[in-house]
Structures are given as C-alpha cells and as structure tokens.
C-alpha cells in the first residue's frame, strides 16, 4: 500500500456525489421493493436489475479517483461563474415549480423569466421587464386556450 510519492490522488468530488445519489436511489428502491413483497411477481425484474446497477456503481467509483504526476498543472477548471449561473438557473426552476400553484402561474412565470434573463446575461432591465411580461401573457393565453385544464392565475 505504499504510494508513489511523485503521484497525487485527485478526487472528483462532484462525480462521486452523483454516483452516491444514483447508488442510494437504486439501493433504496431495492429495499422498498423487497419490503413490499418477496414474491417472484414483484422481484423478477427489479431485484436483478438493481443488483446489476449497484455493481456498475462500484465499477465506476474508481473513475472518480485519478492519479496525477505531482508536478503537473491542475486541469483548467470551469470558471466558477459558469457553475454559479447554472446553479442559479436550477434554483430558479425549482422555485418556479414549487411556487406556480401557490402564487399563480402568471406571477411565478414572470418572476422566473425576470430572474433567468438576468442570469443568462440580459443587462437592460427595460428589455427584460418588457420581454418577460409579453412572453408570460402569450404563454398563459396560448396554453390556456389549448389545454383542457384550468390553471391558477393571480393577475391575468
């Protein structure tokens, strides 16, 4: 177990986290399925598929650890601002999905567009406000006329 001193182990924490999520979802699903019933009618496909899935997770885990010569430059990572923007956009999406029924589709959509346009680089607030308002109205009335469901609205 002696480590070559000229090499360093680099851990890709993000990848490891994704694998942890996938692995625990598969494991939890397998346990839930076994808790429902142990009859073949229930386990026939899910149990072997889940076991294969867990095996594949174990096979991929080593790919999260890479050796790199000590002297080598660190890989040019993506600029943090890119990650921050993507995270912001995902947060805005989550907020939209969770709030649309509570505060009305019109208000939620408008707020999402406002925030997302800013995140994606629209600096002019007048353009942003105008576009968001017009697009929200088109969307509400457009989808409103063609889908057979009502949706909660606050202002429109």
């Amino acid at each position, binding site marked *: 177990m002696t480590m070559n001193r000229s090499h360093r182990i680099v851990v*890709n924490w*993000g*990848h490891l986290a*994704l694998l942890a*999520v*996938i692995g625990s*979802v*598969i494991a*939890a*699903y397998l346990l*839930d*399925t076994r808790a*429902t*019933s142990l*009859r*073949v*009618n*229930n386990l*026939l*496909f*899910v149990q072997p*598929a*889940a076991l*294969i*899935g867990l095996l*594949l*997770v174990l*096979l*991929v885990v080593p*790919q999260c650890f890479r050796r790199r010569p000590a002297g080598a430059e660190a890989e040019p990572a993506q600029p943090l601002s*890119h990650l921050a*923007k*993507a995270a912001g*956009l*995902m947060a805005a*999406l*989550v907020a*939209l*999905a969770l709030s*649309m029924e509570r505060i009305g*589709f019109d208000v939620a*959509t408008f707020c*999402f*567009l406002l925030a*997302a*346009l800013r*995140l*994606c*680089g*629209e600096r002019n607030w007048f353009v942003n406000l105008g*576009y968001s308002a017009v*697009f929200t109205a088109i*969307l509400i009335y457009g*989808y409103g006329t*063609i*889908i*057979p*469901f*009502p*949706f909660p609205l606050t202002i429109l």
Partner: protein
Amino acid sequence: MLDLASIQGAFDLLTSSASAWVFVIPGLLIGLFFGSMPGISITMAMAIFLPMTLYMDFLPAIIFLTAIYTGAGFGGSVPAVLMNIPGTSSAVATTFDGYPMARSGRHNEALGVALAASVTGCLASYLLLLFLIVPVSSVVLKMGPLEMSAVAIWGMLLLGSLSGNSLPRGLLAGVFGLLLGTVGMNTAGYVRGTMGVPWLLDGVPTIPAMMGLLAASQLIGLVNTKYLIEDEGSRKISFAKIIGGFRLSLSFPTIILRGSLIGVIIGAIPGVGSSISNLLSYSETKRNAPDGDSFGRGNPKGVAAAEAANSSSEGGAMATMLALGIPGGGATAILLAAFATHNIVGGPSFIANSKDIVYAIILSNFAQALLLLGVGLGFVYLAGYIVRVPMRFLIPSVLVVAVFGSYAIDGTISGPITLVVFAILGWAMVRYDYPVAATVVGLLLGSLVEGNLLRTWQISGGDPAYALERPGALLIFALMALSIGLTAWSARRRRRAAIPAAGSG
C-alpha cells in the same frame, strides 16, 4: 389482396365530396402547431377537435382528424431538432442526431431530412397497409408476452450502443433508467418506490422526465453561450438547404424502408406504437451503418431512421384500429369515437363490408402525406428562425415552455416537479459524461420489459419449453441474432479492408 372495385369506389367517394378536402390543410396546420408544442399530445389535439366533427359528414370528419394525426406526428420533430425537446416519446430518437446537427449549424438540413423521412415513411406505411392490412391485423393479437419481451429486449440493445465513452457509465445510465421506468404499480399490482406520492403509482411521468433529462439539462449547461449555433455564418435560414436535406434523406432509401417496416409492425401492436418503433429503427440503422460511430454526433441517417419509423407507426395503428376495432393508443381511440358517432364500428366486419371506406381513408392519407410536404416546408422554414434568437432569451423562454408543457400533460404539478428533478439529474449526468439518452431509453422501456418478462414467467410457469410453443418469438429472437451477427461480420470486413489501406498509406 387489392380489390380494384373497392378502390374505384374509394375514388368515387373521395371525388364526390370535394368539400372533404377543405379540412386537410387546417387539420395539418392544427396538428403541426399542437404537435410542436411540448406536452400537447396528439390525443389531446384530436380530443379538443372531436366535438367539431360531430357537425361534419363522415368522410370530412375522418379526413380532418387523420390530418391532425399526420400533422402532429411530424410536429413533434421540430422542437426535437431545434431544442432537444422530445415533445412526445415518439420523437426521442430524433433528438439523438437532430439536435447535434442543429447545434453545428445544419438545422435547415436536419429539418429537411426529418420532413422528407416523415412524408416518405408515412406514404410507405399506407402503401404497405394497402396490401398488408389483413395479415398485419391477424399477427397483432398473436403477440404474446414472450414476443413482446423479444421486442423489448431488441430495444434494450440500443442501451449498449448509446454508451458513449465509458461502457460502465453508459450501462449504469441505462440500468438506472430501466429501474426508474418500473417505479409505481407493476403489472401484478405491487406498488414500489412511490414514497407515498400518489401520482408515482403510474410511474415516473415519462414526457416531463425526458424533457428534463434531454432538453432542460442541455439548456442549463448552455448558460454561457451567446447563440445556439456558435458560428454566425451558419445561422442562416435557407430554403435551399432544407431542400438539400430533403434530397439527402431520399438518398437513404434502405433506412427509410426499414424504418417504415419497423414502424408499421411495431405501430400496429396496441399500447406500444411509435414510442418504441423510433428507438428500434434508430438502433438497427446505427448498428448497420458503416459510419455508425458518428451517430449521436449529428448523422442525418439517425434523423431519417427515427422519423421514418415514428411517422409510419400511424399506418400500423390505423391497421389495428380498422381491422380489429381496437385502439392501439389515445389517438386511435378518438378516431374510433368519431367513427362511432357516424354509426360506423371498426372491426373485422367493417373491413369486409366497407372496403371502399377503408381504401378511401388510406388514399386520403396518401394525399395528406403529400400535402404535409408543402405545409411542413413552410412550417419548418419559420420554425428555423429560433436559431437566430440570442440564448439569453431562448434559455429562459424554452425552460418556461417546457414547464408549461409538462403541466399541460395532465394538469397537475407532478409534471413540473418531475421536469425539474430530472433537469438537475440530467445536468449532473452530462457534466460527468454519462449518456442521458440511455437513461431516457431505459425509462421508456422499463415497464414494458418488466411487464412482459413477468407475464412470460406467469404464463409458462417458469418452464423454458414454453418458448418452443411460440414460433413467433423464436423468429424474432432469430432475426435479432441474425442482425447482430451481420453487423459483427460486416464490421470485421470493414476493419480488414481498412488495415491494408492504412498500411499502404
């Protein structure tokens, strides 16, 4: 086979009520428009316009509804190519190569290929139907669970070929999708993995999950790009290039014919249809193409294979509906309802007694396919302008349309929540080089695979000798083995041919 007197009768029917033709173009436009809106299904479009047909005569009513069907079938490929959004599950394989083509500035070509493959696929399927309606319908009911398992396993072969750079990661993505596809109540009535959420009883909502995995995750990853197509010169909307795509598509007759055949046969099986046929056709084409490695990176053959199969599934579904009176899916259920309002009940006796009406429907669909060519060209040309919209407007707008579309599917918040969860998952998977397409395919196949393996086990009592009683299933397995064998053989021959060439160069 062909009954000339009935065909003559069909011509008389079609020419006698000229007013029927008024409805084709509005129907196609409605279909194109609804089909291209994410989340609006073909069934929904037809259900909304069904009450209107009560006031029409039989033939115009059917022509109008089938025109919506045809239009919506193609409509779904427009957002698939331009936005990576499969608005319906039948356009999944279209995104695999259509979207990469669009991003590299070949959007005109991709849309042209898609349109031409759709039109020819649709034509070919109705042509096949003209001859095969009776045999196809007799095969459909014979499809037992073992045969369906064979079809599902054939579809799963695609998981391997979508694996990308790392086989374990690709397989993991596929298996994860398959497992997610079995969440909810299984075919024997056991409920798993719902975490107490009532709407998960029916499984993970497929279309929102696909939109999240394929489209939303992409858009989030593009947050720093200025335009969908980086190169300004490529952002042109060119009629000539659409036509170029057209010609390109027609230069793959084998692919389109194979796609149409797969589409008709799979489309005729109730409850399976176009969502599986486009995957099978793509998979077969990819495996048999000499340039199979470039699939998934913008190969027009992939677009042609997917579109030929999903458009021709309409013909297959119509065969089952006309010959057996069984709706294979929502769209044909609506058509049957429209039939019924005019006192016409589909089924074996309908085919036997009303051949002229059957042929009239088939012939009018030929005309619809040809008209789709014209209407579709205009539609595609206009839709192409999306590539000129700066990403800072496009990303938020498309995300919000996807959220609305996911809500529109059943009018509950389950759609948007699924979309967001899978958007985040998809973004992370793309970031660490997992093929999200494999997860999508798994998700689509999961319950099909489980349900049919389970029924096979139930029906056979676990006795493998049951397979010997099912020659149809053995035939499908043999064809599958043959197809894989041929691929391996031709790949080896290509490699051998390549080695001396490399040596001499």
